[in-house]
């Protein structure tokens, strides 16, 4: 009898264990059992819950009421787990129908054929978005996502440091910024421009990273050599600290400690300074982002993509269009300091006022929204964009820190990037 009970118990445990594993594996499956008009689509977001629960539940409710028979199952994935969870789901064929992805990872996933071509699926709404945002989803000539919320560079600066160095306004161009940085560092010890990488610096100064067809490196040019030599000269003057070059610095911290005269970043991050040092935040001011020699500013886009294996692709694309439409993006921007990727939403009064605001984040939002037409996602439209950026930045670091010949660094980076693009 006892033997039987023991056997039964162990069986129950084993079955329980496998059942638990089974339910885990089902995660992300797109609405098993959906038939006919009843479509259940899964929607994954990146780190938006619980802060935006009300907003997202509202959008989903509106969508469901306008699309009878379609149910949206929303799941939020923490940012740091996103890549792994997406990969696991993709390898098991269980990718969510609609997925929120950052641009780097989107390109990787798109190149593997996991996403729907939006140039075709959403051709009717293409012109609603800013051109610079639309191309974030690009790999080769195909666009694999709709741009959702975005951030565009802004500038928070410390007028007190500027005044001590004899300036009453922040720089507008790269050239002006470097001239000011030298004086500021000499007179106050604070730093001005602090580029820790060049993968955005090069394109914003007229050097594309890859050729138009995405097949080979395009940055080994006299202009790039000139930029590398220039940055090395500024580094040798002590204007770019080692910790910044090595990307070991938490920029808001340095800004809050008044080690930086300005910090070029999206206005949504200005609040980090407020949390660290309300005093420095209150005396800060905002301005338009410093512009590179070609007059373009960079933007960082969050995207909405649709799985190519979705069983309800039509409904999924509809939902992607719905969540990124002008009304829903405007509502979203009002809950948090991000910018919309849709032109109509950016025309709202909410973005056109704020030039004279006393709140530096609000003023920053005004400037960022104003420059959306001239802002672009500058990441190269190729699969290995993360690795390509890494290779180029590593060579840039070798020039600064190890006195590597700039031309040799560009040659080596070119060879490595060409290998990655093969």
């Amino acid at each position, binding site marked *: 009898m006892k*033997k039987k009970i*023991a056997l039964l*118990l*162990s069986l129950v*445990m*084993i079955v329980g*264990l496998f059942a638990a*594993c089974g339910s885990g594996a089902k995660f992300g499956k797109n609405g098993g059992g959906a038939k006919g008009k009843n479509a259940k689509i899964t929607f994954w977001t990146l780190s938006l819950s619980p802060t935006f629960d009300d907003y997202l539940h509202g959008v989903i409710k509106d969508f469901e009421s306008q699309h009878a028979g379609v149910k949206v199952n929303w799941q939020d994935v923490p940012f740091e787990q996103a*890549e*792994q969870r997406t*990969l696991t789901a*993709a*390898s098991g064929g269980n990718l969510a129908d609609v997925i929120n992805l950052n641009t780097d990872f989107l390109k*990787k996933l798109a190149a*593997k*054929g*996991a996403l729907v071509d939006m140039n075709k699926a959403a051709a009717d709404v293409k012109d609603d978005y800013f051109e610079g945002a639309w191309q974030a989803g690009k790999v080769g000539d195909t666009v694999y996502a709709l741009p959702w919320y975005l951030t565009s560079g802004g500038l928070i600066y410390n007028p007190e440091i500027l005044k001590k160095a004899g300036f009453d306004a922040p720089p507008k161009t790269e050239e002006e910024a470097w001239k000011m940085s030298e004086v500021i560092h000499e007179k106050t010890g604070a730093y001005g421009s602090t580029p820790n990488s060049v993968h955005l610096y090069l394109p914003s100064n007229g050097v594309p990273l890859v050729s138009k067809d995405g097949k080979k490196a395009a940055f080994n040019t006299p202009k790039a050599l000139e930029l590398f030599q220039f940055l090395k000269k500024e580094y040798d003057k002590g204007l770019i*600290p*080692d*910790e910044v070059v*090595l*990307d*070991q610095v938490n920029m808001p911290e340095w800004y809050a400690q008044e080690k930086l005269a300005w910090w070029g970043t999206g206005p949504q991050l200005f609040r980090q300074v407020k949390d660290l040092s309300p005093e420095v935040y209150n005396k800060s001011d905002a301005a338009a982002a410093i512009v590179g020699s070609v007059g373009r500013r960079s933007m960082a886009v969050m995207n909405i993509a649709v799985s190519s294996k979705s069983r309800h692709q039509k409904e999924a694309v509809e939902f992607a269009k719905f969540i990124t439409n002008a009304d829903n993006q405007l509502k979203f921007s009002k809950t948090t300091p991000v910018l919309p990727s849709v032109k109509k939403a950016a025309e709202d009064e909410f973005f056109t006022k704020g030039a004279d605001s006393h709140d530096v984040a609000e003023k920053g939002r005004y400037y960022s929204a104003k420059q959306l037409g001239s802002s672009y996602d500058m990441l190269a439209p190729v699969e*290995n964009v*993360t*690795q390509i950026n890494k290779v180029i930045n*590593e060579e840039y*670091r*070798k020039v600064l*820190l*190890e006195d590597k010949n700039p031309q040799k660094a560009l040659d080596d980076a070119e060879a490595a990037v060409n290998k990655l693009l093969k």
Partner: protein
Amino acid sequence: MYKAHHAWLFLAIPGILLLIFTVIPTVAALFLSFTNYNVFSPVGWVGLANYKQLIHDSNFWSAMKNTLTYWVLVTPALSILSIFLAVLVNRKMKGVSVYRLIYYFPVLVSVVVTAMLWKWMFQEDGIMNYLLSIFNIAPAKWLTSKSMVMPSLAIVTIWQGLGYYMLFYLAGLQSISEELYEAADLEGAGFWKKQFYITFPLLRPVIFFVVVVSTMSAFKEFTMMLTMTKGGPIGSSKTVVYMIYEKAFEQLDMGYASAISFALFLIILVLTLINQKFLDKDNQA
């Protein structure tokens, strides 16, 4: 009363867990190391190609050199210094448990928090350089110079690990009979003589354990590098596990990452066997 099947029942649960979460993934990884698996495409058999690539990969050897440097800096220090710490807190004195708690405290702090704190202290204008300036020593480039970065990371690991290994030695020390020390006292042996002739020989199984465990954790270290230096400056703190992480999760080259994992496994295995030969003489046949 207790029969064999009771034992099997108790063994079954951890056994199944071990099978699912350790044995099967390990075998799968070994299989994947002979493939070009990249998550999306079907698995393709490539034979020994990944291992051949590994032998000629200068990045792998540079990561291996960094890992070995880190191991050489960390394991001897942790294995030896924590014995002395254990001897110190093994004495019968008032408030000794407070000291034990203080030395153990860093173990309770998460690696990420530790890394952030030390990153602040190692900054150019941080507390470490301030301490040097008191003695008129020029500021050091703790995390920004190629030659300093590994010793700096080793300092953090040793600071955090001492208390942990101290605990094992403390348990070992408390199992050594007092009578041996009393006899040594009668013979007129001093502090060092007692340690060399009684403490160290009798602690040998614990020393073996500590050397093996700290070797394994030194070879697996990666969180600290990711948080403090991102593998820099210019790859000089990129360890083998850091490289595995990059290959597997950034570049999705799971096949190659699995091959590196197995190379690392073999190296740790060889080092453990060497340790066993020299330190675990009692348990050898």
